């Protein structure tokens, strides 16, 4: 029983605003390292004809690392450390409720084409998150896809990704 609050506080510490702040700059620090190593490989110095192609980005990578380290230091000792949670679980669920369907939707674009995927995405989101009647959800979804199709394929003549349904209909 006693271990539980401690565990929760540990979790709280690792998900506090400043912990996430620090984690983000760890990632950007690694990005800086990656930029520096790749541009060093290309040559970050001075060739006979002038600066090599890694010259400028190598320095950018270095500044990324320095800035990341400085921000990281602030999260450790700064006066404005923010210990409150980065995001409350109940709010994070709302964010995930749109983010995860979005990722599935993008996968859907690849498999089904953008029109079918968009109709399913809008209808599904309305039905599940908005608790609309499925008929209304389906109508809004299909109507949006139809407007998209009319706008892009027929008006702007910009082809968007298509899937099996469009092939079946001869597009």
């Amino acid at each position, binding site marked *: 029983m006693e271990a539980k609050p401690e565990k929760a506080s540990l979790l709280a510490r690792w998900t506090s605003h400043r912990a*996430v*702040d620090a984690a*983000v*700059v760890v990632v*950007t620090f690694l*990005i*800086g390292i*990656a*930029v520096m190593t*790749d*541009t060093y490989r*290309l040559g970050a110095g001075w060739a006979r*004809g*002038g*600066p*090599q*192609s*890694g*010259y*400028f*980005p190598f320095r*950018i*990578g270095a*500044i*990324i690392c320095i*800035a*990341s380290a*400085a*921000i990281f230091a*602030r999260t450790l000792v700064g006066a404005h450390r923010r210990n409150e949670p980065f*995001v409350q679980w109940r*709010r994070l669920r*709302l*964010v995930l*409720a*749109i*983010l995860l*369907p*979005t*990722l599935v*939707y*993008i996968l859907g*674009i*690849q498999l089904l084409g*953008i029109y079918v995927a*968009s109709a399913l*995405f*809008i209808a599904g*989101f*309305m039905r599940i998150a*908005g608790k*609309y009647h499925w008929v209304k959800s389906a109508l809004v979804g299909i109507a*949006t896809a139809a407007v*998209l199709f009319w706008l*892009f394929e027929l008006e*702007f003549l*910009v*082809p*968007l*990704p298509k899937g099996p349904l469009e092939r079946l209909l001869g597009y």
Partner: protein
Amino acid sequence: MDQIGLLLHGFSVALTWYNGGMMLVGIMLGVLVGVLPGLGAPNGVAILLPLTFGMPPTSAVIMLSCIYWGALFGGAITSILFNIPGEPSSVATTFDGYPLAQKGRAAEALTSAFTGSFIGALSGILLITFLAPLVARFALEFGPPEFFAVYLLTFCSFIGIGKSRPGKTILSMMLGFGMAAVGMDTMSGQLRLTFGRIELMQGIDFLVVVIGLFGLGEILVTMEEGLQFQGKSARIDPRIIFRTWGRLPRYWMTLARSALIGCWMGITPGGATAASFMGYGLAKKFSREPDKFGTGQMEGVLAPETAAHASGTSALLPMLVLGIPGSATAAVLLGGLMIWGLEPGPLLFVEQKDFVWGLIASMYLGNIAGLIVVLTTVPLFASILRIPFSIIAPMIIVVCAVGAYTVHNNMLDVWFMALFGIVGYFFKKLDYPLAPLVLSLVLGDKAEDAFRQTMLASKGSLAIFWSNWLVGSITAVALVMLLWPLISLLWRGKGDGAAISAPSVSG
């Protein structure tokens, strides 16, 4: 005064049926993206940019800049009626706009916000009309060292003027430069930062980044905050418009002050958001009854809106003249110009007179049209906002996905858009400013070219940035801007540094 003649010629370019129609379409779309959460001016322009490639460049830029005006007008609608800023630059408008609406004076608040916006925009355009050609003539003398010094000044001003922590501004900016370097190096033809992936060869397109950061990222933040639109009635009676206009002369000092601040903040990349807070802060400071601010003062609506719109408009001056955008939206427009083969910079004023003056003339017309459109269609846009978020949100995401795809007809871009949406969510929550990132992403290659050409000329010596008074003074100002946070820290250590307190908002 040859500007007048050129401007009149510009009106003849802008005033065709086709361009006029594009203007109206742009304004309507702009107000729409301005009022919808998750769709702001930068990504509204970014999404529509690929669709305008088939249009004549002048018409396309007129439409896209009108989206910008529309969005600036539209941001005020949600601020006043729903207490939710549609754009970061209209946060300060909520302070007095929403209390006015609660008192049943929404129509007055809206009228003064729109009129303030219009006056702000007009001062910005007048500045562009008369100052831009002069600056352009001056800038024709610039060589690579001067251009790099000006780029340096732009980026250092973000650090000096920006509201975010300097470290975060620098990091955000450098990540932009890093992304700009991805792909083929234009000078040597070598592949940089692609890590062996062929997909990265053509680089990371700034449009995809903008749509992700400002579109999906904004939706995620909005979801977390749990938006609910419960607004006031939005009808505007014509009599109230004229009554409000009748009272405006009383506030001429506030208007003039805000317009000045806005123009200054627009030319230096301080941004519309910072300008609106400064406008509000100063109006409060100079007011005879500062205690009443926040309870529904007309001035509290006029001041931030005038400043924001003045800044948003004059941000186009450095973009056109020097190729340096003063705001995120201006950066996107600049990217568009480069895609059309219109290289922004002083030569534009010599070689593309039709385009430049057509655009400037369209700014006058677009803002007049914008004022009329918003005054008459507020109820329509307010009713769009009453559509529940569970319908609007997936639709906005669909629009973002389509926008990201159409940039290069590439599915990978849509995944990048999602990735940058997540990045945008974290950056917004951690107070990273996004505008410097977009700016350095758009300008990265040009800044690098200028730097390398300078280094070639000087054989690697940085002393070239002090070689004559022109480049030397620009570099000096840039360094002051860079060190400004330190200077003001020392300054504040001595006295009581409670200047203008404003909540930090990334613009």
